[in-house]
């Protein structure tokens, strides 16, 4: 077994600041949210430079740093972030488990060779996590807790076997075990300053005084089992982003939405899946949310393909109230093979065509973009249909037409004026001698008995006109030939 631990030291801050939501230069601190005397649990470098330290009371931190952005720790958001990361990491190994509060563990022994070795895989993971906006420490060890402890120590450590792990752990402080305060006090009372000193204590005594520490060390060193359940991704993707300030401008909304879409893209990449549609809900502080629904011409997970239609739609959206939060919900998630470099072998629309359709649909109305298909009906207006573009793949060659058909058909026949029994359209029409009688449709109640003629206007245009026999002989224009 070989475990890679991703330790996110700044996760408590990153759930608020990631993706530029709070700029780096702004001092930011997160408190534990205790009702009476909240204490700082994490702060960024800008706040640290002003003297803010974890453990400090929130009031004191405020006094030290002008313009400090203080947030209450959001454990739910941290858990969601870990789960997203776990889904994303599914691209590297099927065995991933999130380890709250701020770690994700990957069992990489089986898959490392697919990536050209464990160090290549580790480098790819690190780069990917950084792209997703997290600071990360990684460590490799034969046990999951061992990897966690090494990663918490903050250096990029690696223990190839249990003996090496024991040696490396020996030098680390016991605080890395993240034990409850009373256990820490007991260890201090025993005068223990490193995990090595813990291990040198008599087992029976340690078991009596600090049982949780012994249990943890046993698991870390592979003496006791430490099963980690593999993470099972939820079937749906839904994520929420609370905006730091209310937003009215479409470009600012598009910027915020990009972060959610980037997370969705990462999750989809991990699951080797694509999404067919998505819904972005814009929540005002009060009042009804606005929903933006986007359908894609072909399942996709490319960040740009996801983001562009959203940006176009937001551009044309008229907001009734400033937006306080965004909720992104993915539609059906379907399997999509790994990105094949530039090639296109699928049956749907090729990527450039699908991207074009998405752009057009996002800015125009959904029904403004259509394809054409043929149907077998002798009635001219029923011999074709509109359908989603490219829906009729291949298309059987149609039966040859018995006689002339115009290139343009009017949506409904236009009644023509008649002078002395002769139809007119910008002047009296000259009729060709051939008459075509089209009658069909009695079986579905839409009878059509018509005598069609090719007619020519005085300025040379060719028209397709018909007369309903019997009914007073009225003339209708139905199409143009060229």
């Amino acid at each position, binding site marked *: 077994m070989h475990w890679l631990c991703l330790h996110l030291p700044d996760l408590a801050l990153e759930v608020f600041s990631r993706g530029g939501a709070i700029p780096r230069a702004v001092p930011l601190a997160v408190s534990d949210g205790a009702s009476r005397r909240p204490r700082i649990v994490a702060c960024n470098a800008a706040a640290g430079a002003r003297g803010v330290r974890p453990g400090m009371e929130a009031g004191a931190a405020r006094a030290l740093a002008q313009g400090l952005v203080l947030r209450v720790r959001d454990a739910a958001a941290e858990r969601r972030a870990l789960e997203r990361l776990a889904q994303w990491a599914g691209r590297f190994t099927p065995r991933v488990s999130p380890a709250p509060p701020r770690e994700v563990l990957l069992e990489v022994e089986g898959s490392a060779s697919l990536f050209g070795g464990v160090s290549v895989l580790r480098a790819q993971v690190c780069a990917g996590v950084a792209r997703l906006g997290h600071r990360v420490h990684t460590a490799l060890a034969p046990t999951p807790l061992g990897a966690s402890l090494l990663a918490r120590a903050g250096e990029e450590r690696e223990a190839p076997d249990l003996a090496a792990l024991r040696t490396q752990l020996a030098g680390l402080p016991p605080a890395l075990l993240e034990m409850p305060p009373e256990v820490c006090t007991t260890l201090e009372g025993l005068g223990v300053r490193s995990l090595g000193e813990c291990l040198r204590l008599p087992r029976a005594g340690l078991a009596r005084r600090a049982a949780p520490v012994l249990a943890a060390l046993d698991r870390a060193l592979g003496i006791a089992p430490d099963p980690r359940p593999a993470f099972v991704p939820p079937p749906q993707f839904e994520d929420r982003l609370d905006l730091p300030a209310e937003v009215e401008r479409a470009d600012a909304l598009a910027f915020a939405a990009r972060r959610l879409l980037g997370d969705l893209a990462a999750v989809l990449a991990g699951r080797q899946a694509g999404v067919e549609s998505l819904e972005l809900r814009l929540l005002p502080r009060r009042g009804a949310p606005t929903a933006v629904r986007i359908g894609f011409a072909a399942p996709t997970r490319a960040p740009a393909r996801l983001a562009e239609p959203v940006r176009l739609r937001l551009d044309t959206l008229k907001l009734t109230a400033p937006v306080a939060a965004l909720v992104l919900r993915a539609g059906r998630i379907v399997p999509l093979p790994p990105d094949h470099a530039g090639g296109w072998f699928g049956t749907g629309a090729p990527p450039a065509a699908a991207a074009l359709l998405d752009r057009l649909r996002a800015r125009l109305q959904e029904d403004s973009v259509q394809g054409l298909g043929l149907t077998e009906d002798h009635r001219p207006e029923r011999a074709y249909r509109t359908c989603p573009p*490219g829906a009729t793949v291949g298309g059987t060659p149609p039966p040859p*037409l018995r006689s002339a058909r115009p290139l343009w058909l009017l949506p409904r026949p236009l009644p023509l004026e008649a002078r002395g029994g002769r139809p007119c359209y910008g002047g009296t029409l000259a009729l060709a001698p051939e008459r075509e009688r089209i009658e069909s449709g009695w079986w579905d109640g839409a009878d059509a008995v018509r005598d069609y003629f090719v007619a020519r206007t005085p300025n040379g245009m060719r028209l397709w006109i018909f007369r309903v026999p019997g009914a007073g002989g009225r003339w209708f224009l139905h199409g143009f030939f060229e």
Partner: protein
Amino acid sequence: MDTPSDSSALRIEAPVSGGLEGPRSGGAADRPDVWRGGGFVPPGSQVLATGFRELDARLPGGGWPLGALTEILTPAPGGIGGLAPLLPALARLSRERRWLAWVAPPYAPYAPALAACGVAVNRVLLVRPRSAGDGLWALEQVLGAGACSAALAWPAAAGMNVLRRLQLAAERSGTWGVLFRLLHAAREPSPAVLRLRVEPVPDGIRLHLLKRRGRGAGAPVHLPHPSACG
């Protein structure tokens, strides 16, 4: 300036071989580095045989200019009447996997008639914007995306700047852009590399070449009504 004389003295006798599929005859006249006097085509530009020998003979390079704008000016309102000369070329393009885009057509193109002319209707992409502005935006997208072999458009109105953007989009992607405009647009300047005026005549249409690459106006070409589609 937009009514060239019909004099047969202007007729250019150019060797043209084959129809759509036939390879062009070899020889010095076909080498791209041989100057053929007047039939100037910029290097790297592609043409598509029109399917009409008489027309190919008049067009620089011997066909429709791909990766550029073609303007077809018609007398009938709504831009009706200019589609027939394009059909053989459209039929050929529809065998590619790319779209044939129709932006803001006056009516629905009639699928059975297109199919009878050999156009694969499942390649047709109908774009019907609600406003003229959306129409020009959509046309630029369609021309520039590289996902369409041809984009036919019936723009309500288009100024020189807009047309220039469209021409650039077409150059970028290699898409054949065809604009159907009313006759009076002939008086306005245009960056289109080819401008044709359609005149209906009893047994077909007469095409007047108002502007061509490197040649200027030319004598009109008579095209019969296509037999397959009426």
